Each structure stands twice: as structure tokens, then as C-alpha cells.
């Protein structure tokens, strides 16, 4: 099983663990992830303005390269996934964006949204299957009560992201279960951590993460997992009562490849 792989800026710097454990685990699962040669930063936030084109180009370059290789494009960072998936939707559905982007990029062949971008978790669920994943677990995480922290970017807007039920998702809980641990659902697992507000309004971001942490504590979550480096940073910033790690770290541990 081979995929094109888009890492993104943070995975090469502050979130190296998210990538390292993902690559170790992929190798253990027989999945080949080939990093794109000249990937560019996705911009971290999807440009919401209808009249912005320039900020969508890096995503299109990544998508077009995957399409040309006839491979699905795998992402790991929730923000990269959000941006690239929404830009791909624009390239499929918005003629003005499609025309302007293609006029600018002058690719060998016009790109019209042919590639499919999937998040690593979707690869585990849809390409491998959580039942098959469970069979490959050599070090089950028995008796650990783990809460999924979804955040915003993988889930919303639901029609475009098409990742899971935006109000009551289950993919990460199923993932936790496949690794032999006990998933714990708590109400605030899909609430926003504040995201980029931690730069401009730390107090508000703190209040938002407080609410999430209180909810997790109340429901006896012992550890949290996430797919987003900024969520992890924001949640760690508060009191540190519950440890939070990347979902790939759990995966590597359960597969016996956490080095």
C-alpha cells in the first residue's frame, strides 16, 4: 500500500514526534508513505475569503503532484488536512478558483480536484481497517482510560471534511479500542481549544482549554490524544493535569515500534 505523504511545517520542527511515530507505525503496518519532494507550507488556516487565490496554491501543488502519481495524499497534522481538503473542494466546485489557480500555476495538466486527500486516521480506518489494525497490535494498551480530543479542524465543516459525525464522532475512540485501551467519551472532546488565539488572546485560549480539561477530568479521562500540534500545545499549557500525546505515539507503542 503506497501513498504520497504531506508532512507540513510543524512536523519537521516542534511536532517531530507526531511524524516519527507515524512513519515507524506505517512501516510496521506495511504502508509506504513517500514524502512529497517539494511540499510547501499549507498556511495553517484555510483562507475563508472567497477572493483569495494565492494562499491556496501550495495545497494545489501538493494535490496535483499526488494526482499525477495517481496516489492518495496522506496528511498527519489536522490543520494541513483541513486546509488541503477544503482547497481540493474549491478546485472541484468553484470555477473561478479553478480557472485562476490553473492560469497561475501552468501545470502540465490542469488540476480539477482529481486527487483524494485522506488523514492518517482515515487511512487506518478505511484502507487498513481497525479490525486488521487490532490484529497487528503486539503490545495492547490494556486498562488505560484514554480520551480522544478531536478539536475543530478534522471535523468541521462536516460536508467538506466528511471525516466523521461532527457532533458525535467515534473514529478516534474506535482507534483507541483497536489498540486495546479503553476509550472514554467526554462532552467537550469536539470543542475548540482556542487555536491561533493563543498568539493574540492567551486569556481566552486558556479559558477555552480549561473547559475542555474540566470536562475530561470530570469523566475520569487519564490521558488524552490528539492529531493537532496546536491543540496539544494549548491543552498542555493549562495546569498539565492530564497528559496529552499524539495519537501516533499510542499507535507506535501498541505496535511495539516506539523507540
Amino acid at each position: 500500500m503506497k501513498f504520497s505523504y504531506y508532512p507540513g511545517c510543524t512536523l519537521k520542527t516542534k511536532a517531530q514526534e507526531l511524524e516519527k511515530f507515524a512513519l515507524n507505525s506505517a512501516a510496521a503496518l506495511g504502508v509506504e508513505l513517500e514524502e512529497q519532494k517539494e511540499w510547501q507550507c499549507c498556511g495553517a488556516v484555510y483562507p475563508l475569503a472567497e477572493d483569495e487565490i494565492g494562499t491556496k496554491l501550495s495545497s494545489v501543488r501538493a494535490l496535483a503532484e499526488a494526482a499525477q502519481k495517481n496516489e492518495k495524499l496522506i496528511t498527519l497534522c489536522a490543520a494541513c488536512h483541513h486546509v488541503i481538503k477544503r482547497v481540493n473542494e474549491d478546485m472541484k466546485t468553484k470555477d473561478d478558483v479553478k480557472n485562476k489557480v490553473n492560469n497561475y500555476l501552468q501545470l502540465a495538466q490542469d488540476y480539477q480536484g482529481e486527487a483524494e486527500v485522506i488523514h492518517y486516521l482515515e487511512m487506518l480506518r478505511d484502507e487498513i481497517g481497525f479490525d486488521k489494525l487490532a490484529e497487528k497490535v503486539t503490545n495492547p494498551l490494556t486498562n488505560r482510560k484514554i480520551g480522544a480530543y478531536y478539536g475543530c479542524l478534522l471535523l468541521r465543516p462536516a460536508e467538506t471534511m466528511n471525516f466523521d459525525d461532527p457532533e458525535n464522532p467515534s473514529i478516534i475512540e474506535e482507534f483507541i479500542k483497536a489498540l486495546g485501551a479503553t476509550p472514554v467519551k467526554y462532552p467537550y472532546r469536539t470543542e475548540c481549544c482556542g487555536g491561533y488565539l493563543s498568539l493574540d488572546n492567551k486569556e481566552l485560549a486558556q479559558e477555552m482549554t480549561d473547559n475542555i480539561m474540566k470536562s475530561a477530568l470530570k469523566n475520569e479521562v487519564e490521558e488524552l490524544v490528539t492529531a493537532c500540534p496546536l491543540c496539544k500545545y494549548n491543552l498542555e499549557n493549562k495546569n498539565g493535569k492530564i497528559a496529552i500525546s499524539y495519537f501516533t505515539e499510542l499507535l507506535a507503542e501498541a505496535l511495539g515500534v516506539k523507540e
Partner: protein
Amino acid sequence: MGRMKIIPDAKKKELQQILEISGENVKDCMQCGKCTAGCPASSSMDILPHQVIRLLQLGQLDKVANSQTIWSCASCFTCTTRCPRNIDLAKLMEAVRLTIIRSKGSSRLKADDVPGKIDPKMPQQAIVSGFRKYNK
């Protein structure tokens, strides 16, 4: 005859700009308040999310543009996902922010501000998104 909404001519152009940047039609809003009820950042907002749309309906753009609200919005898309009228309020908030920061010299975050706002653990993602959101 029903009530008429009078939008001053001077504001029509700016309002049109907001609608064009966002691609959203504020007239679709029926003020049910679901956006406000679910907003995780509403505690620090001086104008609540549903009131933002109401003010835009009434052409009172200045009140929105001068509010804390547009800077408290984290673009989490909870309102977007829950709106029964399919209005993307996150896009409207963005459009109002952009009418401000797209003017020359009006970026909310400047490169010189960054060292004072970061710490060694902060991921690149935060800085990149901060620039995309607050600097043009």
C-alpha cells in the same frame, strides 16, 4: 406596510464588500441564536455571534468592525456546522476582519510583535496561522 430597513448609502459599498468576500447572505438569518449558544469564545465577545449578523442585516457595520468579537472568533466552525440556515458565520467574521487588516498599515500582528508573543514550545502552526489571520 412592514418595517423598512434603511441602510445609509455610505455603508452600502462596504457591506457589499463584506458579502462578496464572505459569499454569505446575511438576509438568510432568522436570529435563532444557535451560533451564540454553541460559541466557545462567546464569553469574551461584546457583541454576540447572532447579533453580528443582525447588525450586518441592519447595515451597522461600524459596530461590528469596532467590536472585540471579531478578534475573539477562533474560526472553529461550530456555528458554521450548526446553522439551520446554512450561513457560514466564520466567513462573515473573516470578511469583517479583512476589511480592516487589508488596509495598508493595519495588520493586527506585525513581525516585530512575534518575539514577545511566543515561547519555546509554541508550534510553528500557531505563528503561521496568526500571520494568516492577523497580517496582510
